[in-house]
């Protein structure tokens, strides 16, 4: 445990939050903004989840049951956009807002007013995107990848889609700039870069990825917009354009985007596993180098999403081997988490359970990713439910479980109360059982040839689809338990400053709940102190 202590917050109790709605509308406080991000993300998680329920209900048995195929396509498109940009990314930004200043001993984010702006853009962006559900012709239905020429047939909702994606990108870029500037300039004295906690490190790397790729997405959708409304032909073959170029540009954004959603998850899990194993993180520096390697490699593998589009053999070989190479730094991370647990005095509170499930189940998603990386095999897997199974294993028991783990881990620091551990464990077991019931059968469906993004299917696929639908409804219901845990958390016993058993890090040196202002005077950390 570090000896760094800050009593500065005790002298600033008079600087509490303003009363009423103004506190939230005009807040520049990193904790308030973090809370808003997390609440927004949870709301989007349920809206996107409701769309998943529509999808799985329709697919529960063969034939068309509940929705028109066009509406089904709108649901798959909107579900993806909402979950990626509205649920997972803002959840990690919320965790970053709350925890990065506390972990590095900074009083707030470096650019607090821009922080407010980054957040409030999001409800506008998603309000605009969701409003398309009420339009004649409905929401975008061409898939979240927005491939032309299909996306150019979208109709009235097209400009809304493009503008909302622009706003999401703007919000992410501003958030990323804020994270980098804060980490580079606001660390407490003696916290060198390699002494930073892993969550801060993974977020620093993620923020650089965001700054590099979100403008690329913005550029791609800007070109779509001009193709649609201003007579250009960037992607229109009839005008001399190249629709495949869009796919290259999109996946130059899209593949690093995958790591944007998983690197902070690595950071969360790297914080939790050592605490509940009562051992320091094994190979902290190698974790940093591994995350940096993953970030670099994420830029040179994009065309593995496009093996079936056609490319020279050398291109296929390059992208295949480069993709497989990512398994090496990822393996370093998995090894280090297991080595951290090895002979540790482990206990299995809810954050640890979610973290352990993350390690096992994310690895399954990683392995199916390796299978998809094999170019000749990908011709068979492409656009099947195998791909759906793969990326849901990475994103649900991967990113979402890490977010849940982080929420349970830091909740006592945020609220000042211990959550109901029994309910937390019920939430964990229900989520884990149902997430596997939902997504594991999809591997078999994909291998048997069931294509993705279809509202109906051949009867040979019905058993696994029914299983997946039952699992999805169970998983959705299980998440209501999480809301119940949050709502009843104030009934728990008061949390101490440390909350857990001797956790490392500056965030545990402030009282629980964390005061409105913390570290107004930078905490003193001696050179010998192990921050992490």
């Amino acid at each position, binding site marked *: 445990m570090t000896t760094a202590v800050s009593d500065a917050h005790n002298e600033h109790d008079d600087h509490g939050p303003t009363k009423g709605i103004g506190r939230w509308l005009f807040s520049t406080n990193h904790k308030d903004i973090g809370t808003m991000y997390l609440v927004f993300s949870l709301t989007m998680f349920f809206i996107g989840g409701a769309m998943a329920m529509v999808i799985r209900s329709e697919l529960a048995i063969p034939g068309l049951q509940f929705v028109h195929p066009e509406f089904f396509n709108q649901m798959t498109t909107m579900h993806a956009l909402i979950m990626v940009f509205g649920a997972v990314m803002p959840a990690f930004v919320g965790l970053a807002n709350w925890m990065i200043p506390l972990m590095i001993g900074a009083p707030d984010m*470096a*650019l607090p007013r821009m922080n407010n702006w980054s957040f409030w853009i999001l409800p506008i962006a998603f309000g605009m995107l969701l409003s398309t559900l009420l339009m004649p012709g409905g929401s975008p239905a061409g898939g979240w990848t927005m491939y032309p020429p299909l996306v150019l047939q979208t109709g009235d909702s097209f400009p809304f889609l493009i503008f909302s994606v622009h706003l999401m990108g703007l919000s992410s*870029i501003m958030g*990323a*700039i804020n994270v*980098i*500037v804060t980490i*580079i*300039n*606001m660390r407490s004295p003696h916290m060198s870069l390699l002494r930073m906690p892993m969550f801060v490190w993974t977020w620093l790397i993620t923020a650089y990825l965001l*700054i*590099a*790729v*979100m*403008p*690329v997405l*913005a*550029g*791609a959708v*800007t*070109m779509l917009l001009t193709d649609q409304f201003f007579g*250009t*032909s*960037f992607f229109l073959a009839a005008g*001399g*354009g*190249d629709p495949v*170029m869009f796919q290259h*540009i999109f996946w*130059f954004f899209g593949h690093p985007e995958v790591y944007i959603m998983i690197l902070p998850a690595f950071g969360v899990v790297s914080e939790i596993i050592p605490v509940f194993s009562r051992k320091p993180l094994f190979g902290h520096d190698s974790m940093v180098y591994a995350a940096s390697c993953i970030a670099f490699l994420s830029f040179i593998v994009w065309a593995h999403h496009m093996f079936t589009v056609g490319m020279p053999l050398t291109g296929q070989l390059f992208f295949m081997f480069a993709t497989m190479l990512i398994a090496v730094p990822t393996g370093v991370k998995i090894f280090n988490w297991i080595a951290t647990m090895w002979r540790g005095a482990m206990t299995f509170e809810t954050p640890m359970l979610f973290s352990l499930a993350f390690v096992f189940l994310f690895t399954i998603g990683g392995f199916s990713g390796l299978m998809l990386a094999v170019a000749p095999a990908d011709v068979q897997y492409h656009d099947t439910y195998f791909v759906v199974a793969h990326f849901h294993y990475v994103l649900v028991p991967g990113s979402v479980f890490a977010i849940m783990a982080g929420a349970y881990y830091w909740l006592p620091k945020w609220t000042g109360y211990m959550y109901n551990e029994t309910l937390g464990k019920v939430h964990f077991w229900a989520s884990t059982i149902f997430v596997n019931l939902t997504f594991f059968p999809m591997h078999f469906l994909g291998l048997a040839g069931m294509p993705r993004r279809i509202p109906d299917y051949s009867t040979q696929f019905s058993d696994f689809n029914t299983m997946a639908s039952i699992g999805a409804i169970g998983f959705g219901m299980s998440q209501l338990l999480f809301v119940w845990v949050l709502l009843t958390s104030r009934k728990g016993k008061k949390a101490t400053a440390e909350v857990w058993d001797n956790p490392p890090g500056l965030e545990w040196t402030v009282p629980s709940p964390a005061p409105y202002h913390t570290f107004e005077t930078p905490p003193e950390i001696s050179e010998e102190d192990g921050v992490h």
Partner: protein
Amino acid sequence: MNEAQRKKDIRRTTLILVVIAATFFFGFIAMGVLRA
């Protein structure tokens, strides 16, 4: 580090990052223009 120096550093880092983001945005559009 004094506060004035920190503010200067924050401004400089922000500016560099904004330039990087703008370069990627306009760079990729420029690439599209050259190919189209």
